[in-house]
């Protein structure tokens, strides 16, 4: 342990948030070391070659949440990052009739009655109007309701400025369940279900659960254009940018513990036994892991330990990756880029029911993204990645090979019914149960968002009130992963806000 090292900021986790923080800190002239446990960078955004010649560009396949302004600030365009010009077409397949086709920005919908198109436009219009106010709230640290009045009044004013009707509608929707919201807005059950599916991602809830409307709302108002090449392209650009600013990136460097001295960070100890002295750690792994595993509840104030123990992170999402010898296509031969199964709100709800009883849905609901040709698969071939709802991390009796294969079979069967002939194109598949996700990506509870998106685990309460503004009661320790405001998914926002909080504290 050498003295001069102590001015280093150690970033735990080389996922998209860790790398984002590293870029901003290094850009500000700080000495940064990123420690990534795995051999590849990117975390849930990392490119995964799951069969020779076939690579999935990230476990998260929805890149709509990465803000253009942040990409600009990070200077990622210089490293090859580009947004797609055209939004992805999302197909909502339905048995025995034309699919509904949505574009990912909700600018258009087809395959429904004209009256429904108008209702959809109204719904979309509401999102468009409340979007800026919500984005403003989600793009900055969450004000603390018992803290300074000014940021609170500011946030209140932004909402007031929406006008009476939209403001009341917003307040009405926030505590609602997605199913009721969808039923208020639309009449086509297939469209309702297709739009509602993201509401249940990363939350222990179904579309009937109160609060799921907010999850959907926040997700949709922060969505923009997708990134060309998927999540992996984002990671590539972040790695280049970080290195360009002089950050040191170390892979294969899992951390065992964070050492404290007199209530402050003193360094980190790697699993190899190596010790790194530092007075600042910016941790982007999940907060339960940071406090309960890497530090230990016995070294924390009781309230803090209890708050972290109470953070709910019950994984319900599994991942299935398919290597296909042809593009994924519907019955009529239409190739699809993105597809959501689950023909009704009840179908999604039933899948969640299984997770409630610590089992696995036998009719899972899939959110599928297809990447065709180079660099993902041999030319003419494709890779389909599916987020599969719902499979309980805490499966009764635990997860074994049989359970994993059954989950894979069920997912393929469900997808086949929308895309006949799928089995014939199947070259290989990889199934990751929540338990696999927990092991491979070091996720507490196998939870892909580092903690459920629930109304009490957002804003100034994410992951706990004492840690929600990135700094923590442990001197020198900052949080900056998906477990922090504004939450999980590919946004890079928690990492960026954490880095800024760190810089502001100096």
């Amino acid at each position: 342990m050498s003295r001069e090292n102590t001015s280093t900021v150690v970033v735990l986790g080389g996922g998209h948030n860790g790398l984002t923080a590293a870029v901003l800190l290094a850009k500000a002239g700080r000495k940064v070391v990123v420690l990534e446990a795995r051999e590849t960078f990117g975390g849930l955004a990392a490119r995964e070659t799951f069969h020779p010649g076939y690579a999935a560009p990230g476990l998260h396949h929805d890149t709509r949440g990465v803000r253009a302004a942040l990409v600009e600030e990070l200077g990622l365009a210089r490293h090859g990052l580009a947004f797609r010009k055209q939004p992805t077409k999302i197909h909502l397949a339905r048995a025995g009739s034309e699919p509904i086709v949505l574009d990912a920005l909700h600018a258009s919908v087809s395959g429904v009655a004209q009256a429904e198109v108008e209702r959809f436009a109204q719904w979309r219009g509401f999102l468009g109007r409340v979007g800026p106010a919500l984005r403003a709230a989600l793009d900055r640290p969450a004000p603390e309701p018992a803290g300074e009045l000014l940021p609170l009044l500011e946030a209140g004013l932004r909402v007031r400025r929406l006008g009476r009707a939209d403001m009341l509608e917003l307040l009405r929707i926030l505590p609602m369940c997605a199913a009721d919201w969808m039923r208020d807005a639309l009449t086509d059950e297939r469209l309702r279900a297709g739009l509602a599916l993201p509401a249940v991602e990363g939350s222990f809830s179904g579309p009937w659960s109160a609060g799921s409307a907010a999850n959907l709302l926040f997700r949709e108002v922060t969505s923009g254009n997708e990134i060309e090449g998927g999540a992996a392209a984002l990671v590539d650009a972040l790695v280049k940018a970080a290195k360009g600013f002089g950050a040191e990136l170390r892979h294969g460097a899992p951390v065992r513990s964070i050492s404290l001295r007199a209530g402050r960070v003193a360094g980190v100890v790697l699993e190899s036994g190596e010790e790194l002295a530092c007075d600042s750690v910016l941790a982007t792994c999940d907060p339960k892991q940071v406090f309960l595993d890497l530090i230990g509840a016995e070294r924390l104030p009781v309230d803090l330990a209890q708050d972290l123990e109470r953070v709910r992170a019950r994984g319900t999402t599994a991942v299935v990756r398919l290597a296909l010898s042809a593009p994924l296509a519907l019955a009529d031969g239409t190739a699809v880029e993105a597809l959501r199964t689950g023909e009704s709100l009840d179908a999604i709800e039933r899948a969640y029911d299984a997770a409630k009883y610590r089992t696995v849905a036998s009719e899972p609901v899939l959110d599928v993204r297809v990447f065709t040709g180079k660099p993902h698969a041999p030319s003419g071939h494709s890779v389909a990645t599916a987020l599969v709802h719902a499979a309980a991390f805490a499966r009764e009796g635990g997860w074994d090979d049989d359970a994993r294969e059954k989950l894979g079979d069920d997912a393929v069967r469900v997808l086949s019914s929308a895309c006949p002939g799928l089995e014939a194109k199947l070259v290989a598949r990889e199934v990751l149960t929540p338990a696999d996700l927990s092991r491979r990506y070091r996720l507490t509870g196998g939870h892909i968002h580092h903690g459920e998106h629930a109304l009490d685990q957002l804003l100034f309460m994410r992951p706990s009130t004492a840690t929600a503004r990135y700094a923590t009661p442990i001197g020198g320790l900052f949080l900056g992963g998906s477990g922090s405001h504004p939450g999980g998914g590919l946004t890079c926002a928690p990492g960026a806000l954490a880095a800024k909080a760190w810089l502001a504290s100096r």
Partner: protein
Amino acid sequence: MKQYDAIIVGGGHNGLACAAYLARAGRSVLVLERRHVLGGAAVTEEIFPGFKFSVCSYVVSLLRPQIIRDLELPRHGLEILPLECSFAPAVDGPGLVRWPDARRTREEIARYSAKDASLYPEFGREMAQLARLVKPVIDEPSPDPASLHPTELLRLARLGKPFRELGARGIHQLVKMMTLSAADFLDEWFESDVLKAPMSVSGIIGTYLGVRSPSTAYVMLHHYMGEIDGAMRAWGFSRGGTGEVSMSIARAAQAFGAEIRTEAPVAKLLMRGDEAAGVVLADGTELRARVVVSSVDPKLTFTRLVDAKYLPSEFTHALSRYRLRGSSGKVNLALDALPEFTSRPGDGLHIRGDIAVAPSIDYLERAYDDAKYGKFSRRPYINVVLPTLTDSTLAPPGKHIMSCFVQYAPYHLATGPESWPQHREAFGDTVVDTLEELAPGLKNRILHRQVLTPWDMEQDFGLSEGNIFHGELSLEQLAFLRPAAGFAHYQTPVRGLWMCGSGTHPGGGVMAAPGKLAAERMLKERAL
């Protein structure tokens, strides 16, 4: 022709309370009740000779103490008998009784978890602290966050102040209380299912939600409000049945000069221009008043009483989204002898409180899953009381009344609500079978059985969709959003028409708060 200051449509506890407060302020008031008895859903009826059932609402929970004092209800016959303990019987084993005595409760819980036992009192204290914050919210009209009126802003700030004083962590606790599911909230404290299941059910009563549905935790607070109300015996039976609550309010109203008519169904509003000027009865009689106050639910008010042409489309749209999915049924049994629970055979204090059929969280959640998909629960949650153990006026000596509140019985069956009459007896059988498993021999002691489905509650009691609270008590339908944004202060888009039922703030239950608050609002606004 006489012109009243106010005509109140519906003689339930809220309508009567509103009448009493208006009459007390010197206004001339007429209450019109469709049925032959007063009380609405807070009613006592002799359904079988000698047996008086609290047909719908069966316990007095949150009747506001201020109303008891203001209207001097004890002088008008109100007497509340305590409901002291809560028994959760089990098929095997002793089940769980929560007693008013902390030590005994601790021993009961310690059978299942020593840790839970030692934590239970602390839970109660934390709940009482949170309940303290909620109390002013239900005792006052809701502030309107969309209003820029200085008094509304001031009220918001005033209600907001104690919240800010809680500190971030305290506010987080409150947010959890408001948004978590009862199951998740209890999971933060306790490990034993035998304890958590009966505690969680207070969060789902009357709602179309399960114990794992987010936002069910906060109703548990109500259980801790009695302690801080300054009213002893806040939870209990009303002597003579729940109808006596209504009757005592009616007597108070009459003592203040209000006029009450039964078997006087109102057909529609009497309009003068686009203002309400009175009502037209079903028999064609026209009655005039300066204001008409509806205590029936918003759906009934604005579809039956008022012609749609008088309502702005925005309001009609908002009401079309107002949710009233009824979810509960009632089975009233007249018994030849007391039931014998295998958990704890024989008579005893443990069956003098409420008896909750809630063996586990998963059991309750499965009961909800059935309802979600349009079926009544194959194994329902049942809340049983035996009021005859404390009130001998209700049944012949030695005979008993067993009142069973049942969830879930969704109004919207998959086969349509109108198919309920075909399912009524099967539903009754399910309830009795469920109880028979816990108290074998019950079936043979049943003298009479009354099964009330949500369909029946709609048909017989005028509760739209059989919703006992005049609208679901979900967050988006409470406070300034109940029943619709901009109309949470008891006024309606029709001049001269007001609301005072459970479909207004602070909502359902035998609280009588909406009736009181509506009367106060009308007086303050000089509406009459």
